[in-house]
C-alpha cells in the first residue's frame, strides 16, 4: 500500500488534494491572478529571512546598530539575507497594492467576496505597520528620525494623540522602550495577526473559488444566479494545477529579482542614530512618502488632515468599499464613478511619491 493510499484511508487526503489541485477555475484566469500568490510568497520570504535575522539582531539602543553591522559585515551571507529582507519588503508593498488594484478593477470585491476584500485591506494595513516598525530596528539616522516624525504625527490625532504617541514610543521620547516595542510588534505581534488573517483570506478564496474576471455573464453581479453562472464559467476553465505553475514561476522570478537587488544594492545603513544632529533631513521610506508630501499640500492648522483624517478616513473607505459601492456592475467601465476616483487617488499618490 502506498503512503498516499495509507494516508487517504485515514484522513481522506486524496479527495482533499484533488478538490484543491484539480478543481477547475473560471476561464480567463491568467497572469494578473498571480499577484495574490506573489504577495503570499514574498510574505513567506520576509518571515523566513526575518526569523534568521533575529538570531543575531539585538533590540537595544547600545547594540542594535552594532548587531546590524555585524550581520552585514561579518556573518557569512549576512549582507544577502539582510538585503533580501529589505528588498522583498518593498516588493511586498508593491505587489500587495497591485493585487488590490487588480481586485478593484476586476470588481472582485463584490458579491460574494466582500469579506475577502475587508480582510485583504486589513492585511495591507498590517504590511504598512511592518514597514513602520521595521525600519526603526537598525537604529541608524533614518530609523531614529523617521520614528521621531512618525510618532510625532500620531500626536495630531484629535483627543487621543498624546496617549497614542506615548503608547507607540513606550514613553515620552523615542528610546530604548520604543525599540523594544517596535521589535516585539515587528517580529511577534504583527506576524501573528498577519498569518491569522492570511489563513482567513486563503480560506475564503478556496471556499469561494477564484473570482472570475468580469466578462460575459459574470460582468454583472446577480446574487440569485451567481452560483449557476460561476459553475458555467468553471466548466470552460482550466485546472487549478496549471494556474499554480504560473504562481510558482512568478515566485521564482520574484526571488531572483529580490536576490539580484540584494546582491547589487544591499540594504542601506546610515550613520548611527544621533539625536543631536542639526543637519539631518528625515525622509520616510518610499511607501510612506506620499503621506509625508501631503503635509506640504495642507499646511498650518490643516496638518491634521494629512496627519490623521486623510489616512484614517481613506483606510476606512478602502476597508468598507464593498458596502459603499453596491452597484451590480463589476467591470470598471460600467461603474465609472468609483473607478475614476480610484484612478485619481492612484495617480495622485504616484505623483507625490
Amino acid at each position, binding site marked *: 500500500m502506498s503512503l498516499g493510499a495509507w494516508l487517504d484511508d485515514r484522513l481522506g487526503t486524496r479527495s482533499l488534494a484533488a478538490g484543491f489541485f484539480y478543481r477547475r477555475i473560471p476561464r480567463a484566469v491568467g497572469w494578473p491572478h498571480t499577484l495574490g500568490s506573489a504577495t503570499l510568497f514574498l510574505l513567506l520570504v520576509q518571515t523566513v529571512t526575518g526569523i534568521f535575522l533575529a538570531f543575531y539582531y539585538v533590540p537595544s539602543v547600545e547594540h542594535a546598530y552594532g548587531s546590524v553591522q555585524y550581520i552585514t559585515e561579518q556573518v557569512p551571507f549576512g549582507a544577502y539575507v539582510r538585503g533580501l529582507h529589505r528588498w522583498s519588503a518593498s516588493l511586498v508593498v508593491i505587489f500587495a497594492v497591485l493585487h488590490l488594484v487588480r481586485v478593484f478593477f476586476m470588481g472582485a470585491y463584490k458579491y460574494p467576496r466582500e469579506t475577502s476584500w475587508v480582510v485583504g485591506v486589513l492585511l495591507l494595513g498590517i504590511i504598512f505597520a511592518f514597514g513602520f516598525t521595521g525600519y526603526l530596528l537598525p537604529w541608524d539616522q533614518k530609523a531614529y528620525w523617521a520614528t521621531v516624525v512618525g510618532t510625532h504625527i500620531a500626536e495630531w490625532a484629535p483627543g487621543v494623540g498624546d496617549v497614542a504617541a506615548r503608547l507607540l514610543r513606550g*514613553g515620552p521620547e*523615542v*528610546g*530604548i522602550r520604543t525599540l523594544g*516595542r517596535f521589535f516585539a510588534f515587528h517580529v511577534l505581534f504583527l506576524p501573528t495577526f498577519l498569518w491569522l488573517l492570511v489563513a482567513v483570506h486563503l480560506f475564503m478564496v478556496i471556499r469561494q473559488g477564484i473570482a472570475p474576471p468580469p466578462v460575459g455573464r459574470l460582468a454583472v453581479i446577480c446574487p440569485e444566479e451567481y452560483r449557476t453562472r460561476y459553475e458555467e464559467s468553471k466548466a470552460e476553465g482550466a485546472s487549478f494545477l496549471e494556474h499554480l505553475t504560473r504562481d510558482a514561476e512568478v515566485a521564482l522570478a520574484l526571488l531572483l529579482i529580490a536576490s539580484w537587488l540584494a546582491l547589487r544594492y544591499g540594504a542601506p545603513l546610515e550613520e548611527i*542614530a544621533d539625536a*543631536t544632529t*542639526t543637519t539631518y*533631513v528625515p525622509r520616510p521610506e518610499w511607501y510612506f512618502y506620499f503621506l509625508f508630501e501631503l503635509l506640504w499640500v495642507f499646511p498650518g492648522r490643516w496638518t491634521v488632515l494629512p496627519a490623521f483624517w486623510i489616512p484614517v478616513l481613506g483606510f476606512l473607505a478602502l476597508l468598507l468599499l464593498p458596502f459603499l459601492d453596491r452597484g451590480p456592475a463589476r467591470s470598471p467601465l460600467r461603474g465609472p464613478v468609483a473607478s475614476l476616483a480610484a484612478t485619481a487617488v492612484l495617480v495622485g499618490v504616484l505623483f507625490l511619491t
Partner: protein
Amino acid sequence: MSSEPHHQASLPRSRRRFTMVLLGAISGAIGGILGIPLGGFFGLPALRSREFAWAEAGPVDGFKVGEIRFVALMPLRRPVWPEEAPRMGAFVSRKADGTFEVFHNHCTHVGCPVNWNPAAQRFFSPCHGGVFDRSGRVLAGPPQRPLDRHEMKVEKGVLYAGEIYSVNERLERVGRYHS
C-alpha cells in the same frame, strides 16, 4: 443551520442557549483575567510620567549674550538601562538681559530637527519649511505652536536643562509634555 438538522437535534434549544451563555461567560472571564494585566503591562510604563533627569548644557560663561548656540546635553548620570536614550540636543539662547532660554530641537510640526541660522536669525525646519524667530515663535510654515522649551536652572555657574514643555503663542507654559 437548516442544512444540518441532524446536528441540531443533538442538543435541545434551551440547553444550547444555556451552553452558549456559559461558554461566553467563561471566555469573558479568561479574557479579563489575561487582558487587564496585559493591557497595564503594555500601556502603563508608557503613560507613567517620570522625573526628567537634569542634564548639563555648559558653563554659563561659555554663552555669549545675544547668541544662540546648539549644545549636546550631557546627562548628569549615565542613563542606564532601561532608561537609556540617545543623547539629546538643544539650542541655548542667551538673551540681551543675560537670561537664558533653552529650546528643544524638534520642530513642533512633525518633529524634524530644526537648525539655527545666525545670519538670518531664524530657526529653520528642513522638512516642510517651518520658520521660527529667536524666541521660538512661528514666523512661517505649518507649525502651530512655538518651539518647545526645556526647564532650566543655573548652579555654580553651570546651566542645566530639564523637562521639556510646550508654550502657547504668548510663550506661556502649557501643561502637556511634548517631545
